[in-house]
């Protein structure tokens, strides 16, 4: 990405400012579903005051782990502003992709870091972890109380009764489309899922779809922003809890879900915060589903790199996450 083009784009967003300057443009590693760039900007406001702000650009990659669009994230961040769920303030979106080669949107940079392993393992965060765990549960309950009708672009099943099968079929379609080799473990997983569909939720809620330690910003003992809404949709609230409890996020390599607290502690805090009542069988269904979905995401990434759609080596590496997740799937459904 060229600094000059970015500065020219920003100049259009601040038409009265004669001196928009861009600095510290750098790409952030990870986020394999969308390119993430950070930069600082400064300009003179109409009243003559000097302004400066840190921004994040989320730009479509040439190929990715996910087939998603900027509109959904932009709409969600816009709708969630002021809802009590901490999210960055979104500023501009370019759907045409004419300004910086591909479609993108810009949001203000929040304070904090996302480093999951450091949060969950480092002694410096030992005292912060219980508080972060509690906030993580409270914010999830808040997300699940959000009015989904405020975001028309959100994918949703026809009714709560269809919530589970809607997601199972979505990811089965993705597997059939993207798997480059037969996937017997995932086939076993889909068979199990279709036989263990949970009872419908009371109502459809906003499901984050990737709610895990590593997808929120934290500063000290405070969660400052919930990120990565590419897989958000309307569905069963327990789907998000299934993702939370996955073995893959047990960063401390012990029993703590998300590397922060026990499974029971998280469920108790979530329910006490006004979240849905959690049934153990329903949670197990969504845990199995989450592991299957996780594998399929990486199959899509592997296909992208094998077909030469992207040079991002992370997509080759993440394919090697799958064997460990397959072991977990088999353990859960055996």
């Amino acid at each position, binding site marked *: 990405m060229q600094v000059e083009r970015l500065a020219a784009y920003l100049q259009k967003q601040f038409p009265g400012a004669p001196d928009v300057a861009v600095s510290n443009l750098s790409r952030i590693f990870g986020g394999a579903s969308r390119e993430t760039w950070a930069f600082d900007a400064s300009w003179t406001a109409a009243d003559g005051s000097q302004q400066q702000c840190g921004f994040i650009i989320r730009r479509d990659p040439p190929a990715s782990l996910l087939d998603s669009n900027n509109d959904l994230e932009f709409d969600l961040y816009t709708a969630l502003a002021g809802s009590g769920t901490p999210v960055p303030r979104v500023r501009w979106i370019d759907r045409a992709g004419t300004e910086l080669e591909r479609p993108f949107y810009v949001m203000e940079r929040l304070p904090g870091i996302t480093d999951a392993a450091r949060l969950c393992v480092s002694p410096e965060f030992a005292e912060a972890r219980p508080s972060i765990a509690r906030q993580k549960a409270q914010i999830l309950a808040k997300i699940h109380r959000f009015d989904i009708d405020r975001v028309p672009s959100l994918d949703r099943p026809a009714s709560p009764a269809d919530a589970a099968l809607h997601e199972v079929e979505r990811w089965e379609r993705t597997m059939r489309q993207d798997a480059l080799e037969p996937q017997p473990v995932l086939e076993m997983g889909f068979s199990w899922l279709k036989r263990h569909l949970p009872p419908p939720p009371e109502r459809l809620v906003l499901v984050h779809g990737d709610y895990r330690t590593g997808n929120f910003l934290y500063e000290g003992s405070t969660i400052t922003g919930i990120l990565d809404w590419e897989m958000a949709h309307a569905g069963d609230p327990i789907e998000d809890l299934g993702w939370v409890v996955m073995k893959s996020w047990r960063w401390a390599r012990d029993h703590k879900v998300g590397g922060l607290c026990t499974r029971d502690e998280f469920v108790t805090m979530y329910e006490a915060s006004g979240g849905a009542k959690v049934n153990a069988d329903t949670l197990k269904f969504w845990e199995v589903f989450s592991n299957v979905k996780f594998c399929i995401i990486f199959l899509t990434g592997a296909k992208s790199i094998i077909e030469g759609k992207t040079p991002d*080596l992370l997509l080759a590496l993440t394919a*090697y996450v799958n064997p460990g997740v397959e072991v977990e799937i*088999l353990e859960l459904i055996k």
Partner: protein
Amino acid sequence: MRPNQEELIKAIQTGIGAFFAPELQSLYAQSQMAVAMTLFGIAQRDYDSAVPDLVEANAQLRAMLAAATAALAQIDRDDARTAIETAPAVPEPSASLRLSALRAEHDGLRAVLCALAPLIEPAADDPALAPLRPVRAALFAWLSADSKKRVVPILNN
């Protein structure tokens, strides 16, 4: 011929690490380099045993599919009969030890397993599918062991 292929991969990895990596300025490029180094390690790890691993896996999978087909034949249900009739044909053992031929055989065997999965997986709970239970247990154990062989420890918690 020395260096052999594994030694070449290691030499390339070492050379890149020594001469290219220090020149990288951005954190993003350095992170991509770290990923590349890990991928070189995976390629080396899997290289030497690739052929015998596939030969062994194909033989084991073939035996389990034969057991599955025999168990299905004992089940008096339309879906069991249909599964036998419609599943892809079990591929002939590869006459070649080329990786490409062994991989094709392996994919063919796994495709048969995929086709039978909707009957094998429910066997644990469905009394009518009881003849498949030993096959299910053996297949799950085999699939788990097969996946464990391919685990990259730093990638899984």
